[in-house]
């Protein structure tokens, strides 16, 4: 089908075309309105795992136990127990938070090979708007927290709440175990959360995808249906002609065409 023929079909079916265009615009508008919470904000925070007499101030303290503790902390911080404390401190529902990391283990070398059981749990958590990642430094007792959220401000709010939430969890554990004051693990936030805007163009991408997708599929549907109808009519006409010719031939043998001509047609 030539290009100008396609335009002719679309013009002939201008009501359907207009509806498709309207639907495409509506889809784009709907995506634009519904994607207001696509994460465009990110915030980061660093937490030092320390002792009451700060490692930074005490020359005689070996930092190695603190470094190994930071790695354990990074993993414990992804647990639901800590996430609930963080959600409480941030004033959001616990279901709105999900955490990933820390990354490690020999499986990471061959890329993640997450089995179905673990993947199911990841999928359940995919809808959460706030995504937290905890990364322990290799040779320092420092955990880097990264938060993605709908806006930079909200991401920063949750990032700041990470420190408060983890602190609350640790305090509860210390109270439950009766930890002596000089042995208490001390967490120190290394400054307030740093926030910024990321993924600025994500909404425009989605709007364009919705507009073009609906437009393309809708126009294809119009052209496809119309060309099928035409084709059907054309084939039905030929079928009728063939049937009429067949009738003529069967009734009047003189009208029969030479075998060579039939052969040509069949080719």
């Amino acid at each position, binding site marked *: *089908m030539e290009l100008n023929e396609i335009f002719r079909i679309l013009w002939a079916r201008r009501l359907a075309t207009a509806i498709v265009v309207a639907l495409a615009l509506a889809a784009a508008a709907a995506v634009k309105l519904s*994607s207001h919470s696509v994460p465009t904000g990110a915030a980061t925070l660093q937490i030092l795992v320390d002792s009451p007499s700060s490692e930074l101030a005490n020359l005689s303290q070996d930092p190695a136990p603190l470094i190994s503790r930071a790695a354990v902390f990074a993993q414990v911080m992804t647990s639901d127990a800590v996430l609930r404390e963080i959600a409480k401190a941030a004033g959001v529902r616990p279901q709105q938070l999900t955490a990933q990391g820390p990354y*490690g*283990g020999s499986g990471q070398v061959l890329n993640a090979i997450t089995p179905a059981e673990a993947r199911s749990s990841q999928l359940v958590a995919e809808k959460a708007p706030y995504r937290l990642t905890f990364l322990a430094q290799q040779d320092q007792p420092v955990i880097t927290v990264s938060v993605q959220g709908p806006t930079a401000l909200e991401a920063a709010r949750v990032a700041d709440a990470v420190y408060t939430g983890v602190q609350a969890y640790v305090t509860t554990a210390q109270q439950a175990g009766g930890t002596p004051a000089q042995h208490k*693990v001390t967490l120190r936030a290394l400054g307030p959360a740093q926030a910024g805007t990321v993924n600025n163009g994500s909404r425009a991408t989605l709007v364009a995808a919705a507009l073009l997708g*609906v437009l393309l599929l809708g126009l294809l549907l119009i052209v496809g249906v119309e060309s099928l109808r035409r084709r059907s009519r054309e084939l039905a006409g030929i079928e009728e002609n063939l049937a009429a010719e067949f009738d003529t031939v069967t009734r009047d043998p003189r009208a029969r065409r030479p075998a060579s001509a039939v052969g040509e047609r069949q*080719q």
Partner: protein
Amino acid sequence: VSWAAGIFQRRRLRPVAILVTVAALAAVLAGYRISLAPPALHARTQQLGAAHAQVLVDTSNSAIADIEQLTQYQSDLGAQLAVNYALYLQGYGPTAALGRSLGLGDRSVAASGPFTLLLGRSNTAQKLPKLPDPRLVDRSYRLLLDVDGSRPVLDIYAQAPTQGAAVKLADEARGLLERHVATQKASYPLPSTSAAVLRPLGPTVGGTVGAGAKWQLMGFAFVLVMLLGWSLMWARRQRRARSYMVGIAGAKLDRLDEQLPGCDEWPYTTRLLPWALAGFMAMLFLVPIDAITLPIHLPVNGTLDRPVVVALAMLWFASLAVVSGAARPRLKLGRVHVAVLLFLGVCLASVAVNGQALGDMDELTLVVKKLALLVSYAVFFFIVASVLRPREVPRFAALMVFLGVIVALGTIVEYRTHYNVFYTLWGKVLPVTAPNLLDQVDSIGRLTVYGPTLQPLELAAMLAMVLPFAILGAIDAATRRRRVLYAIAVGLLLAGGVATARKTSLVVPAAAILVLLAYRPRQVLRLMLKLGLLLAVLVHFVINQLEPGHFNSALTTTDRTARYDAVTPDVLSHPLLGRGYESYDPQKYRILDNQYLDLLITVGLIGLVSYLAIFGAMMLAAHTTIRGPDPRRSSLALGAFATVASIAIASALFDVLSFPHVPYLLFFVGAMIIALREPSPTPEPARLRVTRPVGHAGGPAAAEGLSRPPSPEPAREPVLAG
């Protein structure tokens, strides 16, 4: 009942009623299993319950709280203990106990792990005896225990038909472990600093995956069967008229062997677009385009093919705007075009529908890049299909064989000497980023031979795509010299493919040869028998790869099949439109090595069917030409058919759309199929679309513009058939 019987009695409505009944039955079968004794419908498991719990292996004074409690040594011991707990919970006793507590009777739950530590998992073949297992295991209740080997935390994942059952399974597993540890501690009292304490890290969290999957799958099955049935009915009703029309269309086609005086076809043409396409093909075969990123700022990706496609598109638009007559590209929308556009539309729709989640997971950047690449393929296809002429097809096929032979030679050289001629030479003039494993042995002991590509699988597929044209060239060659040359080409292409040390290099050519055999059994078989000597040379070149022990040493097939189970939750969570085109990042989630699986996850069943429709449309179009009256067109269409079929097979072996050499080549071959269905244009020089008055300075010759007048060249021998 009488109403339904009435419908069945009406002649016109009867087929429709039968079709609706069959579609409804298919929908029911998609959602339910039918048992005959006793007769009943059992719902299929199309949703999964998932749960996750964590346990910290700690001491009585918590390491979280007390600074004195955790040293590196203790942390390692705790991590090792967590591994032991993970293995304990996988034992026969605990899994049977868990089965009983879930009400499964004498059936155990399935347990595995830890996957992060890769314990007991190896990608190389191990000749271990497979012992019989008398236990009854219910695989719909699954427990996964995970530890990373360096931190004292045990992750317990559970999967069951419902969320409640999954949460219960995780809770029971944690409880069982706590009881086991408590029993052990009671049997041998330890000081508080040494005794392990299991601390649950919060309650078990659960959820449901694929809650609406059942109805979506049933609806899809209904619509698919309706569409297929309607297509069959439509084709059946009008089969006589269709065969008549095909006959007429075939009669209109000129024979490619017959000379057409004054034709203006590549390479004897001044039309720029065919030359540009030939240049693009040369680039595709000889340049590692994936590894070259030009220092040009583009909105998406600066790899070499993208700016070249943009330039090609600009030239094409210029030709549409300026040139008239036969030299003007002819844009016609056919079945293949519709299939390509449909696939593109579904991909865009999948991204729009899942945009929110993709944005949440910061995966839109990857999706945009992949969409841009898909648009590049589509644009390239539209351009080639509108530019290529039937008489140019054999010449481009010969060009492909020639370029394929160069690549094959380069690949064999690389295999034997570990010297990649493509990367080395282009690296001297362009900013080439060589892959890390270039000519190195990979993690499972295979030499990675890249040729001009970024993946040995891509290289193997590319060489296999050219093979059918070489085989048919050898069969159809008119002279002995050409036949020998094409036979050598076949041998080199096979040798080059096998030198990639991938099973794909055997499977894909075998599929192509099988297709050729189906259409021309005698000729292809005779040729393959004659090629015995060449195949011996091939074995000599690549003897190591063909040794039985070496060939089977990598568990790539087992690895591929293991993925089918692992991606089930992803498929069920978005069964119809997927999670967004190509949003399943292999670096983040899992390397699938299967385009169909990838599409099933990212664009769902609708996207997968539209992807298959591209192959179907191409093969259907080629089939009509194969059965047509012109032997030359038939031969070329058969070559193209086999190429398309081989990529349909290759799509099950690696993610074809991620490696641009193969899709570009596929769409070029698709465009060749379309060109073969068209009659040659009437010889006519190209003209600029500017009309000038007669007698204008420069005369009529100057007004004719772009093309020289047809030269009185002697008749040329077609290239492919000799």
